[in-house]
Structures are given as C-alpha cells and as structure tokens.
C-alpha cells in the first residue's frame, strides 16, 4: 500500500527535492494559450474564408456558393418526435442513500422533487422536457433508509428496495409549470402569484399512474396495499408494518393529485416576508 501513491503525493514529494518555486521559475503549460492572430501588412484581414474581400465574418456553417453541410443531406427520421418525449433524469438509490447520510435530505419529512432539488447536487430543467426524476436501482442492496418518497418513475426493484426498509414510494405526475414551482419553491413564492393546480397526466401517462404495481398516485389505495404484499412475496422479504410504525403519520402523508406543495392548496399566495398565506374570498 505504501508503494501506491496518489499522483498528488508523488508531485508534492518531488517538489521537496526541486528548487524553490518562485516568481522566476513558473510557467504555463506549453501551448496552453493560443496567441491572437492579427493579419498584418497590405492584405491583413481581407479574407474571411471565401476568396475575395469580405468585411464581415461569415455566419456559422455558411459555405459561400456551396449548399451548407448541415443542409446538404436529407433528414433521416430515426428520432422523430424524440425531442417531444418526456425525460426523467435518473437518481440512483445509492445517491439517495448518500444524500441522506450526508444530511442533505431529511428523512423525517416526505421526500419529493423539492427536497431533491434543494440539495443543490441534482438539477432539473423542466424547460428541457424534464418531467421529474426516475429512481433507478443502482445501490438497491445498500439502501437502508426508511423514507416516504415521491418520484415520477420507478422500477419494480426500486419499489421493493424502498418497501423492504419500511418506506413508502409513490409515483406522481407533475406538469412543467408545477415542476418549475416545485424546483425552487422560494423563487416561486417570491413571485407573489397564486399556487397553480397540478394538471392531470396526459393520455399516454394515465395508465402508468393508475397502475398499483407502479405505486401510481391515481391508483386505488387498497390495490396498492395488495400489490405491496405481492411484491414482498415475489422478492421474499417480510413487509414491515407501517400501521404500527412510530412515524406512521409521516409515512402516510400524501399530496392531493391537484396539489403541488405539501400542506399548501392551489390558489394560495405565499408571503415569505410576512410569513403568512393569502386566500381568495369565497
């Protein structure tokens, strides 16, 4: 072990036998800096890549008389409609466990997109068709936390890993406007606009979110309880009883399908300065 050293250690060890580093003997890496070229002399700066004199820089991709390379070939529709599909950036169970162990996520409260984003280590871009997070199964074996988590997509193994530890998982749909609010709640509240209603899922997502096997938020709760048992038998673990858990209330906490923030109804305006919320008259 002693013979294996980090490169940094080697470099620092080497410095001990080298002359003192001072203002006179330091230099940048070779070729690190590209010298700016300026055309000098009679024809300095005449050409911009197309023969005769042009006094402006040509636009990107323009090839003078040729048809530009990026327009030269027909569009092949391999990925037709790909840019319109919903994206779910992955969050692994391993990462979730690390975030919990480093106190970046509080497990005594339900976990949702807001708590994942507030760690500052995971980024969500709703404007780039990100529709929330998918929880992936990397680190399923070492996941040890009891959590009430709400994600947008989860595989069967992930659901099993969460429920084995006595936790609750739920998949829920958020539209882009809701995610924008949920991504940075402080920024949204400072806008002073009423909290919008969460939209119902689009047609092709309804099936996923009403399926109790996916722990969809629109599924029948009794069917979900049954599926929990079925999954426990399939993976061969004993399902911990949530009803007798001391943190039953937290584990049982859910959002309304139309609700974006825990405990805040749509239509409220939040004033962070006065620490109150403003409700519309009936």
């Amino acid at each position: 072990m002693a013979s294996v050293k980090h490169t940094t250690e080697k470099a620092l060890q080497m410095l001990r036998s080298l002359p003192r580093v001072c203002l006179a003997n330091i230099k940048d890496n070779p070729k690190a800096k590209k010298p700016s070229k300026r055309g000098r002399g009679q024809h300095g700066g005449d050409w911009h890549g197309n023969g005769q004199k042009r006094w402006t820089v040509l636009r990107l991709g323009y090839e003078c008389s040729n048809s530009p390379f990026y327009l030269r070939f027909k569009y092949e529709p391999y990925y037709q409609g790909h840019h319109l599909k919903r994206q779910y950036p992955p969050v692994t169970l391993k990462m979730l466990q690390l975030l919990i162990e480093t106190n970046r996520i509080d497990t005594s409260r339900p976990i949702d997109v807001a708590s994942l984003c507030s760690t500052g280590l995971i980024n969500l871009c709703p404007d780039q068709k990100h529709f929330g997070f998918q929880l992936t199964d990397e680190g399923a074996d070492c996941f040890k936390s009891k959590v009430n988590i709400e994600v947008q997509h989860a595989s069967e193994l992930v659901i099993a890993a969460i429920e084995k530890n006595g936790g609750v998982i739920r998949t829920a749909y958020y539209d882009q406007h809701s995610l924008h609010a949920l991504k940075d709640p402080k920024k949204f509240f400072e806008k002073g606009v009423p909290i919008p209603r969460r939209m119902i899922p689009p047609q092709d997502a309804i099936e996923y979110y009403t399926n109790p096997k996916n722990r969809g938020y629109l599924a029948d709760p009794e069917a979900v309880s049954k599926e929990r048992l079925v999954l426990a038998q399939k993976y061969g673990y004993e399902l911990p009883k949530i009803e007798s858990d001391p943190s039953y209330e937290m584990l049982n906490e859910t959002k309304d399908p139309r609700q974006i923030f825990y405990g805040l109804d749509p239509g409220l305006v939040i004033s962070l300065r006065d620490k109150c919320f403003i409700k519309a008259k009936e």
Partner: protein
Amino acid sequence: MLKNIINSFIKIPSTRLFVTAPTASIVTQSSSLSNALERYKSPLVTEPREVWLENLETEETQRLGLMALHPEVFADTPRIDIVQRNVHWQRLYKFVSFAHTKTRAEKRGGGRKPWPQKGTGRARHGSIRSPIFKNGGRCHGPRSPTVHFYMLPFWTRLRGLTSTLSIKLAQDDLHFVNDLEIPTDDSQFIKNLVEKRNWGPSVLIVDDNDIMPQNISIATDSINYVNLMPVYGLNVYSMLKHDTVVFTKAAAERIQEKILFHLNRIDANRLEKKFKLNQ
C-alpha cells in the same frame, strides 16, 4: 545574512523530516479545526498534514504542539500552470499600457497629394503620411491608454491559493506560529530570529486580523524583506515573492475554513450562472 541568501538558492534537507507520529501529550488541536476537518471529510482525500506549531517569543524555535491541516487545502495537486496564471493575472489586472503611436491622420501634414497621379513615372501616392512612407503613420499600433484588466475565473483563483499553499508546505517554506507576540520592538530580534530558524531571507507573516501586535509592527517596519499581511489579503503573488510564509494559527484556520467552504459549496453553479457567456 549571507547564510540566508545561500539558503534561498540551496534547499537544506528539511526540518520536517523530524516530524514523528504525534504523542498524546503534545497534540493540541482546536475544536473548530477538528470540526471543520470532520465536516468536510472525504474518502478520496489523503491524510491530514501535521505540522509543528512554533512560537515567536524566542529566537530559537520552541515547538508547542502539532497542528492538523486539511489535505484539500494544504496538500492539493501542485498545479504550477494555475499558479502562473494567477501571477500573470495579478501582474496584468492593474497594468495600463501607455505605449502610443500616431496614425496617418494624427501625423503632421500629409493632406496634399505628393505628386500627380499620372505622368511623373513615379508610383502613385496620396499622402506622405501613409503607413508605407518613412515617417508615415503607424497602422494597428499601440494606443494609449490600453487597460489590461481581466478577471481570472473564480475556481482558478481558488486553485491558485491551494496549489501555492501546498507547494510552500511541501518545500518547507510554510511555518505556523501560535501568535505574533514578540518581547521587543527591536528589528534586530526579527533579523536574528529569521537567521536562526533558517527562514527566508524574505518572510511574509500572515495574521487573521489587520491590526497586528505593536511590537512586531514596529520591529518589521524597517526591514523591507519581512512583511505583515492580514489573511484576507493573502494572494499567490505575495506568497511566491517571499521565500517563507508564516501563518498564525488563527490565520491558518480562517483561510482553511474559507477555502473549504468554497470548494464544497453547492450553490456555486447558481451563483456563477449570470457570469457565464455564450451559454
């Protein structure tokens, strides 16, 4: 003095070789430091660096205890190129070039066509101040004042500090003292101290406060190669300009805390966003 000058060229085998494993009686580690080390602990980083805490009260060194330093700050990869970029930036950002040349328009005369276009047998010219003429104007010449201010990226500045601190520590040019209290305001005391301890000759003394103790302020005032600096003014150029850098314990803790905060902050991306170009 001569000895010191020779020392600045020849590296004497270091005193740090005598550092042995800490014994329980002399280990004094402040709680805030150990808290900081605990808080920013990473499995990827190497062992904390242990250095002697010295005194300044006597000319001879007295070792007061061991001090643990975070390896991400004091044993970082010594990136000489980043250090150089920091030095280059520090030299350049305050530099204004006053080099100036006159264009053909600013040169005296030259409004008249020197000779007719045709019929003389000579080359055609329109002005005696054209750039191809002797004593003509200069094209694309330097114009005064040219400001060379630019901002080095924040992370390059940060890595510059950690690299320089690591280089200084690795080359035994970094020393740590408990405080800056010295018994006299005689500058000879400091000169003797520097010579006896094999420091310098040029020494930069860094404290966490900009109000230094009276004795050391008076004693170092007349010595040009011994300088005092508060920790908020710590920079790569000054550390490299001085052969030896001396930190007080409080200053070392302060700079370590600050650098670790910036290395580990999670809102950096958001804060940098508005300064990003071409994104």
